């Protein structure tokens, strides 16, 4: 059952597993997600929620021991999961590109910065790498680096902030329609994080591309994103605009999360969510959050709640709002 909610990307009923010596990890359990052109979607969640796996699945980058069992990833009008590898490669690094958390590990350590950006441009424009050096230098200036100095530097010579700028340059060089940023600032100092987020904000405004930002930091998502998807243990839990989500969270997990985040100037006491994130080899039945939920009902143990629209453009997967749940109240 495919949804057509977004005009750029539609992920429906995505199931991904990983085969390990401990057993089968049911990492994604029917994830639903969608994006419109130019939107900034923040995917938040804690360890094991599946946010990184989802981003990899969108680019069809799930490798052994992982496997996409079912579901669809429709980018504009094509289902990426059904395309041949050669066709997917045309999209990757071109229409959809990605930047990662540890920029220094994601850059090739034996090639200098100029070469790596030129390589990306060469692939995109179908020209030789040599011909792209000028454009590469321009890209470096675009991200606020001194191209004369940086073009010939190697990744290990760069600071964290500089390396991340290079990553952003490589990510935006192909002028993608969608940029996936997987915890792009988690490894950076807070003042550098502010710089990078500001840069990203600026560039994305100019280029008009959509951004899927994966993070665990509620502050980053509040400042950068206009839509938020909260994930829990392999499922989509709640989706709404940033302001709606913070003002009126519907899912008990979202509420719990917001109550647990410290904030400067906050006067009420922090509230922790009891219990721990479940083991995905043997996840809880029904709603995977039911064991930790303060409002759990009988049906929550039995059936997984559907991800439905409760208010305008505000979706929740929770029996408090589902039809069946309503009947049981």
């Amino acid at each position: 059952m495919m949804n057509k909610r977004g005009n750029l990307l539609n992920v429906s009923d995505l199931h991904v597993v990983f085969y390990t010596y401990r057993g089968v990890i049911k990492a994604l359990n029917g994830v639903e997600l969608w994006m419109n052109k130019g939107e900034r979607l923040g995917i938040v969640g804690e360890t094991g929620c599946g946010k990184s796996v989802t981003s990899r699945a969108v680019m069809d980058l799930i490798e052994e021991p992982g496997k996409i069992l079912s579901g669809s990833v429709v980018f504009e009008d094509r289902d990426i999961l059904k395309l041949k590898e050669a066709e997917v490669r045309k999209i990757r690094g071109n229409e959809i590109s990605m930047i990662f958390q540890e920029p220094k590990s994601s850059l090739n350590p034996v090639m200098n910065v100029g070469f790596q950006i030129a390589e990306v441009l060469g692939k995109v424009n179908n020209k030789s790498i040599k011909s792209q050096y000028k454009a590469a230098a321009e890209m470096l200036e675009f991200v606020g680096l001194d191209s004369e100095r940086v073009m010939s530097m190697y990744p290990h010579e760069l600071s964290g902030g500089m390396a991340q700028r290079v990553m952003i340059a490589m990510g935006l060089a192909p002028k993608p329609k969608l940029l996936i940023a997987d915890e792009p600032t988690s490894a950076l100092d807070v003042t550098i994080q502010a710089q990078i987020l500001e840069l990203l904000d600026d560039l994305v405004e100019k280029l008009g591309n959509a951004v899927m930002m994966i993070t665990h930091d509620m502050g980053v998502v509040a400042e950068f994103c206009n839509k938020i998807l909260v994930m829990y243990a392999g499922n989509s839990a709640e989706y709404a605009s940033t302001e709606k989500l913070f003002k009126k969270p519907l899912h008990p997990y979202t509420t719990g999360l917001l109550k647990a985040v410290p904030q400067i100037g906050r006067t009420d006491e922090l509230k922790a969510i009891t219990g721990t994130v479940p083991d995905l080899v043997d996840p809880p039945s029904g709603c995977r959050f039911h064991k930790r939920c303060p409002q759990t009902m009988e049906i929550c143990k039995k059936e997984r709640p559907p991800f439905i629209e409760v208010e305008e453009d505000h979706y929740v997967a929770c029996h408090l709002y589902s039809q069946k749940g309503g009947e049981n109240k």
Partner: protein
Amino acid sequence: MSENLLEIKNLEKHFNLKKSIFSKVRVVRAVDNVTFSVPKNSTYAVVGESGSGKTTLGRTLLKLIEPTGGEVIIRGVNIFSLSNKDFMEYRRRMQIVFQDPYNSLHPKKLVKTIIGEGMKIHFKGIGEEEIRNRIKAVLEQVGLREEHMFRYPHEFSGGQRQRIAFARAIVLNPEFIVLDEPTSALDVSVQAMVLKMLKETKRDENLTYLFITHDLSIVDYLADYVAVLYLGQIVEKGKKSDVFTKPAHPYTELLLNSNPIPNPFLKRDKIIAKGEIPSPINPPSGCRFHTRCRYAQDKCKLEEPVERKIREGHIVKCHFPLI
């Protein structure tokens, strides 16, 4: 105001870097002339980013790293001048909890051994049963159960491991605990639980904390006092309420502003500093912050600023403080 438990005076840790026998010796002033006092039963936060020296500071206090200068005075005694034997008593009273939950507990030892070993070292002649009872008590205090002592660290989640690490710290009845970014590696909801546990235990056991972190929201939640470190020096220190509401140092102002607020309705003007954080191997001349300071003037490049008193207990190191 209560008396001070610890008085740290001119603490210094310099590292000598030498690439080979032939290259010149370069000195990294990781902790450079740091002075502050920690009142009894308070939580004193030390904040800073990479290169600030905050981690080195925590370890130097406990002599895990040998200091190259300065004193740490507890009840009139400079503990750095003590012999190894005399220092043992202070080792018991001063404990540390580390940042990495996955590497701070010995992977091949039972939780029982991990928590109990300290007792065997410090309470010579203590009986097995008493050790067991103490471990049971302390596990329950951190929200775990007696049977957990018979398990291995890998059987626990990150948050639980930090609780075990904390249990290890309090089992010896210390008076002072250095907490080195204890929640940085944890999920948000787990962090909340650990922070609450820290707060409650401090109250119940009359502890004093030195809390090292880069996260100002946590400082706001837990700390009574705060010292802001930049490239090995304290640039501002004082009561948290004073420093946070009216920061005197441009770097403090920058830190507070950079901290992302989980509230989309609060729109603020962002202060974006220029450039990278300098390396502590080659710090800028004069005021070390001048390369990124938006108020920097010529004097800042040439002269190192002296400490100025804003009010009682609130000190700033700047030529042109903001207040």
